[in-house]
């Protein structure tokens, strides 16, 4: 297999930052154009790492922009208009803060957890407001998404798509159709896309992983 045109993604399914890149590659349907492997045992220290033509790229948002700029045929992950691009970039990078806040909820108990829940709820509220601004006519349908998904959609899906499993583990609703209807609509529609469905982890697996993650975090905090 020639080194040229080979795209390798290093990562594990449990890390949303890896998932973002995996989803991007699937949506761009690069499997038919160049051999793609998702390796489960990363050899680089940090994941995700994308290796293309022997050159490595890290940082999920940087990788996604690289993919979009390199494979220009097929769906564009970022729109042409510079202003629209800027809005998508702003909200996509905001999701990192939401994610960090969410992880704090998983890692804490008692009062610390209550505070963490308050914080992530505020952030999620802001994100919902941001989506309202970006989608004044409502979230696209599955059909519309099948023609065009953006960087922001993929990032929301990868980072927040497991919200139901998370609710199962924590017993608390942070994202739900009452508080954050747009985020929920977005995720619900995106999960139906064939490119997404085929690699989507079943809830039981996600629940098992989150439980393990939380136990680990609480044990090392207590130690």
């Amino acid at each position, binding site marked *: 297999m020639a080194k040229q045109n080979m795209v390798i993604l290093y990562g594990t399914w449990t890390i949303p930052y890896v998932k973002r890149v995996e989803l991007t590659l699937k949506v761009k349907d690069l499997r038919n154009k160049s051999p793609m492997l998702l390796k489960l045992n990363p050899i680089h220290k940090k994941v995700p790492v994308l290796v293309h033509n022997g050159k490595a790229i890290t940082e999920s948002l940087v990788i996604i922009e690289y993919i979009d700029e390199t494979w220009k045929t097929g769906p564009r992950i970022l729109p042409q208009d510079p202003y629209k691009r800027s809005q998508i970039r702003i909200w996509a990078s*905001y999701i990192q803060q939401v994610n960090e806040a969410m992880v704090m909820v998983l890692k804490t108990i008692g009062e610390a957890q209550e505070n963490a829940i308050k914080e992530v709820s505020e952030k999620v509220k802001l994100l919902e407001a941001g989506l309202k601004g970006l989608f004044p006519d409502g979230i696209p349908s599955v059909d519309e998404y099948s023609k065009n998904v953006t960087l922001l959609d993929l990032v929301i899906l990868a980072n927040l798509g497991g919200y139901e499993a998370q609710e199962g583990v924590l017993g608390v609703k942070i994202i739900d159709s009452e508080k954050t209807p747009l985020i929920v609509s977005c995720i619900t529609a995106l999960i139906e896309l064939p490119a997404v469905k085929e690699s989507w982890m079943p809830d039981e697996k996600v629940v098992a992983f989150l439980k393990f993650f939380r136990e680990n975090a609480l044990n090392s905090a207590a130690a």
Partner: protein
Amino acid sequence: MSQVTVLGAWPSPYVYRVIWALKLKGVDYEYVEEDVLHNKSDRLLKYNPVHKKVPVLVHAGKPIAESAVILEYIEETWPQNPLLPKDPHQRALARFWIKFGEDKSAALFGFFMTEGEQQEKATKEGQEQLRILEEQGLGEKMFFGGDEIGMADLEFGWLAWWLDVMSEIAGVKVIDAESFPRLHAWIQRFKDISAIKEPLPDRSAMLTYFKGRRATFLALAKS
């Protein structure tokens, strides 16, 4: 009436990145000073309701926040004197170092927010990151962008003017010509570019301002 407005605060290096980009591309703009510490204007709150921070770029009435996002917008809207290379892999590298600068800012500024033993530790941590930046980011190049100044150079522009002031106030030497020869040489080259040096703030005003900031940080740390 200028179509381009920059909302900024004169001591902020984030704001200068935007100003430098506009100057390097020869784009006319109107600058509006915001008192972010004490009295944010209605205009700022309207244009950046989420984070209420500067810089904000307003172009034809549309606001864009987050300096990294603003720089990408400027690059896409005014392509003359490009600040990013054409090759997707080189672009990915530039963006990687920009993200590195953002992610490591706590480590890099730590020396300024601490004193005593904590400061010794923080200074070492910052220097470790600067070592990585010098060896892997800059390497043997004239600028982070290669032979010409680029977006990554603007990200680290604070090293060329702010670091010196902050070091003096905090009483530590973070970089010097012997310990970081390449970064030091880059600083001289960077400051020599007229679009860069022309808008730089007055050094004595900076000393006064940042002395106040350090006092605030240290007081907060004690409380």
